[in-house]
């Protein structure tokens, strides 16, 4: 059995030869994703260069950022994408969910695959053992037209997860622990590779961890596929996707071991995802808004936890509590299980699958001076609204517990 990193193994398999760290290689892309916030910017290049779509089956076009459009300008931008899809007979995910959740639901995303998306959080698909990374629109257009793109074999950092976490400690807390250790530039251009030794994290929690790997500057965050992955794929596709032959772990530039049994709920304080504090340090912070959703935390586990904490109770008066499921599939299942009813009955509002207020788009922007606890991934100045607003990042469990009290609250003991 060979020795190496997961990213090295995936890119080497694609190249058909053993690649060294730092080597640049052009690889075939298994799935390419673009959305209404990034794809339309490429239309000028596509027209100017007379480009066509190399393989429509390997293209996922999503309308999720403007879902539906809240301004005429955004409707105009989105229309360019809808018209392009219609003109070329391309499938279009129109308001069916956040692109990164749709990647996880897509049959072409699985172990060993190379997934590119015109969005930094494309890394989310690494939760299923894919090498998934974000690119700008120009790179996206290149891959759209040729099916290929150059990638550098990244140095890699191994992160070993051990044990089982408290029920109120979720993937989001693991992501924040990784950020606490590495900082928000500690892994620029590196691959974060996760080995969940005891299967302590659910597939949904892994998606949150992979999603926020980019917040350390990482190129990708890859979970070594295991029984949890294969069970998820079996339920998704009716069969386990063929796994690749993974190397023995080796060649890592650094290694971190996280003991999940001792992990506590964490919070990233304004204005950087790497500004991680223990929950105790920020407990009691008054809130104007709680947002549960985004590509980090709009999955079924997140809605289950939210519903369990809110069930039979009422959210704090004057605190805007907004819940946005990650996809139509997630929303339908959450309705079937009664989660949505519990959340609505508690006084929260539930919006349609979309990016929502994350990235300053719609459905819950913050006024000047407002403070929000959000399950999303970024809290840069002005990220969710007015420049003077403040965003604390935490798990859906912490968010739901805090919605009930109106101040940042420890969720442990509530599940």
């Amino acid at each position: 059995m060979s020795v190496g990193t997961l990213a090295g193994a995936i890119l080497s398999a694609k190249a058909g030869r053993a690649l060294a760290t730092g080597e640049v290689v052009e690889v075939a892309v298994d799935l390419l994703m673009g959305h209404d916030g990034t794809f339309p910017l490429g239309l000028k290049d596509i027209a100017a260069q007379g480009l066509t779509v190399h393989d429509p089956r390997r293209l996922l076009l999503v309308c999720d950022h403007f879902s539906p459009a809240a301004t005429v300008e955004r409707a105009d931008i989105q229309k360019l994408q809808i018209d392009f899809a219609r003109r070329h007979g391309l499938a279009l995910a129109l308001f069916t969910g956040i692109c990164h959740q749709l990647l996880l639901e897509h049959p072409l995303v699985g172990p060993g695959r190379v997934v590119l998306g015109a969005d930094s959080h494309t890394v989310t698909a690494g939760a299923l053992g894919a090498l998934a990374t974000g690119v700008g629109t120009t790179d996206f257009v290149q891959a759209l037209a040729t099916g290929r793109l150059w990638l550098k074999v990244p140095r890699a950092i191994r992160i070993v997860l051990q044990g089982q976490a408290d029920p109120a400690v979720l993937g989001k807390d693991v992501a924040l622990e990784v950020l606490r250790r590495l900082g928000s530039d500690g892994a620029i251009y590196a691959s974060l590779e996760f080995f969940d030794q005891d299967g302590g994290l659910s597939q949904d929690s892994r998606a949150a961890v992979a999603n926020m790997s980019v917040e350390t500057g990482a190129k990708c965050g890859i979970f070594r596929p295991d029984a949890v992955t294969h069970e998820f794929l079996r339920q998704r596709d009716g069969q386990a996707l063929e796994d690749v032959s993974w190397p023995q772990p080796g060649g890592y530039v650094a290694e971190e071991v996280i003991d999940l049994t001792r992990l506590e709920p964490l919070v990233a304080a304004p204005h950087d995802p790497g500004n991680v504090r223990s929950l105790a340090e920020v407990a009691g912070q008054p809130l104007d808004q709680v947002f549960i959703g985004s590509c980090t935390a709009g999955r079924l586990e997140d809605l289950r936890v939210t519903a369990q904490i809110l069930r039979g109770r009422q959210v704090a008066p004057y605190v805007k509590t907004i819940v946005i499921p990650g996809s139509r599939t997630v929303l339908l299942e959450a309705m079937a299980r009664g989660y949505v009813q519990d959340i609505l009955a508690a006084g929260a509002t539930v919006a349609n699958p979309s990016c929502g207020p994350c990235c300053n788009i719609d459905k819950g922007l913050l006024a000047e001076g407002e403070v929000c606890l959000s399950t999303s991934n970024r809290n840069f100045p002005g990220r969710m609204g007015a420049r003077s607003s403040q965003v604390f990042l935490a798990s859906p469990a912490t968010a739901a517990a805090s919605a009930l009290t109106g101040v940042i609250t420890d969720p442990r003991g509530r599940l």
Partner: protein
Amino acid sequence: MSFASFFGPLSHTGRVWVFGHHVSVDAIHPARFFSLDPERAAQGLFQGVDPAMPEPLRPGDVVVAGRNFGCGSSREVYAVAMLRQGIAAVVAASIARICQRNLANHGILALEGLDLTDQLRSGEQLTIDLAAGQMRGASAVWPIPQPPTADFLELLRVNSLRKGQS
């Protein structure tokens, strides 16, 4: 105005704007300025860093930043805006991965590995001399830590012309 015009002689002197660490894409180009019209997009450049921006920018200006410049979002409209405003180069301690690719794809020179944020003040002049492999301020000279190859400079030239026209 772009790499091809600024660095035709392989050397460029421009006025610097000194930013801090972790300047995110949300600060470089707040989402509310997102537009497919390059002229409109250009009006949002650096608004999240300094609300007075981008009015004082002049073609040929150089951004000097600390660690992790361009972290966060992949939306490359900020590169369009930088090209439109004539930003000649970014000199930073480190640059986020997608930002590196986006700047290269727009033919904007990005030099990493040197933190000049304590060495320079906004408004001062910086000469980037690619032929000599050094940068020069009023009273100091710094070697370019990871000098771009000739092939890469040619790529920047081609990309800057292509993006400048489209």
